[in-house]
């Protein structure tokens, strides 16, 4: 399969990820969507690496690995925060978590 196929696929996944991030009210779903975004990015890395000029440099997988590691850390911290937020606000609804706004 050609690079464009993968790019289109990752773009679609990006779109779906954004959809989740931008439209859903629940923080956790937003975190899901962020994970989707991460994966779409990884897919691109690997795709470009696969169809890229010098695959032996292993740029793609290396990036992907690091990305995965960071994503994992991110999810961990994100969910910890969500738990803390929930404990304090008793809700995970983004629309209600607007105490940071200007009065």
């Amino acid at each position, binding site marked *: 399969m050609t690079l464009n196929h993968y790019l289109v696929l990752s773009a679609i996944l990006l779109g779906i990820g954004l959809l989740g991030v931008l*439209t859903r009210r629940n923080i956790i779903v937003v975190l899901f969507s962020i994970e989707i975004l991460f994966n779409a990015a990884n897919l691109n890395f690997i795709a470009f690496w696969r169809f890229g000029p010098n695959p032996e440099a292993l740029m793609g997988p290396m990036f992907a690995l690091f990305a995965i590691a960071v994503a994992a850390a991110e999810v961990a911290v994100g969910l910890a925060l969500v738990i803390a937020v929930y404990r304090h606000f008793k809700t995970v609804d983004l629309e209600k978590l607007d105490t940071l706004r*200007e009065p």
Partner: protein
Amino acid sequence: MSASTLALIPCLPLLAALCTAGMRNGRRAAAVAIGALAMSALLALWALSQAWTGDAQVFPLADWLSVGGTRITFSLRLDALSALMASMVTFVGLLIFIFSTGYMAHDPRCARFFCYLSLFAAGMLGLVLSNNLLLLFMSWEIVGLASYLLIGFWFHKPSAAAAGKKAFIVTRLGDLGLLLGLLVAFTQTGTLELYAGGAGLLEKDPGTLVWGVGAAKLVSLLLFVGAAGKSGQVPLHVWLPDAMEGPTPVSALIHAATMVAAGVFLVARTFPLFEAGGTLPLVAWTGGVTALIAALIALGQFDIKRILAYSTVSQLGLMMVGLGAATTGAIGMYHLFTHAYFKALLFLGAGSISHGCHHEQDIRKMGGIARAMPVTTAAYLCGALALVAFPYTSGYFSKDAVLVAVYGADRPLFYLCAFSSLLTALYVTRQCVYVFAGAHRGAHAPHESPAVMTVPLVILAVFALGMGGLFGGALQAKLGAIHAAHPFPVIATSWAVALGGMLLGWVIYSGRDLRAPDPLALVPLQRKLWFDELYAATAGRLWSGLTALAVLLQEMVAALAELVQELAQATGQFFSRSVDGRLIDQLAVDGLARRFHEGGRAAVRFQSGFLPGYLRWVVLGTLLGGLFVHWLLT
């Protein structure tokens, strides 16, 4: 005769005036006044004797004011003319003073009357003796003031007050002319001295031009205006008849003998100017016209004093003719002297008659005085004869001299004068018939005046008759007249005129029922040829027009000021309300603050705390970034 003694002549009556001003008691005031005048009369005679023998002398008195270069000093001049005038004034004045003590005896303000009289005498003497045109002018004004005060003496009579005011204003108008003349002379020659040892006004030849007219001519003209004002020549004569409102001695003294003569004296005094200026024919003709008109009006009058007033005006006209026609002032002055006496007599006579008839002035209500007041009547008739210029009376000599002079100079004028003399004779006889003949038409019978009044009458009568013959020749010679032969036709006409007039008068009036309307008193004559109305129409209206204009101007300017204030108010309002109120408060200060506030609020809306919103903006940013990079790359 030293300067101080000469100065005493006018100063004595002045002192008397000052003393009597404060007095209450009439008799004592009269005594003081008469005493002072008598003293000055003696001095005058002494001065006359000196002047008669010696030549003219100038006595500088004192510096009135010295302004830088020009020094105005008051000086007196003693020469035949001034001496004669002074003695005439003092003598006649004395008689009148004596007469008025009787006449004014029971008037409460008699002291004040004598104060004014002595003030008048002082003014007159000052005028006559002064060598300085300014001093002359100042005394001229004093005389005017005195006449105003005397005319308006019975101030409670509104007509008297009005007459006084009118007299003063008309003479004041004349004085303006005199003042201007004086100013012209002063500015041209730098001095106001008439005779200053060669540098005087009359000695220098004033050559420079002023207003396009020779200086001399101009000065003489202006002086003549002054004279006309004072002596009641035609345009300015209206005040004289009204001046009869004053007590009779006043009329006698002022409006017969002295004051009115001042004008003629002025012309005589400054004769060289008139001669140099060539204004003599003008003088003559005005005189002639005045004589004619006055005579005509006199015919139509019924008030005894008014008739005499108009006869004075006419005689003054004749004097002016005398001056204008002759080569020297002598003839006019000679007539003046003689006229002074018999006119004073006539006036005093009229005074005693009206006094007798309980202040009745209207001749139609008189009659039969001859029987009731024999002495007054006799004196009065002597005066009348002199007035008519009955042959060999003083009037005859002086009038004859005038006619001779005019005959030589200007024939048509001669005929004019002759005719006016005829008229004079006519109205005199008319008056005499009205007053003396027939039965008394008045309310209650007349009674003879007391001695204090009749004695001066008799003295005056003597002078009126004899004066001409006795002194005539010497007087004229003294005054510098060249004794010309009397051409026969002149004498014939004068005789014809005098006797014819009397005969005509007698014919018309004797035997008539004097209550019936007088044939000769035509309406225009009675109405004094509507001179007053004429003046009122022209000058009066002009005058009130000017005042109206001034008041209008005042109103307009005041309104303008009002407008300015209104404008200032409005602009103040405008600035405070619109500029300050709207512009600065709303727009500049509060408006701006509100704008910022709203801006802030709008900005705050971004910080809505709505997380998806933030994320959307982030994505939008990346989108635009992506587009931009894409755009860059392509």
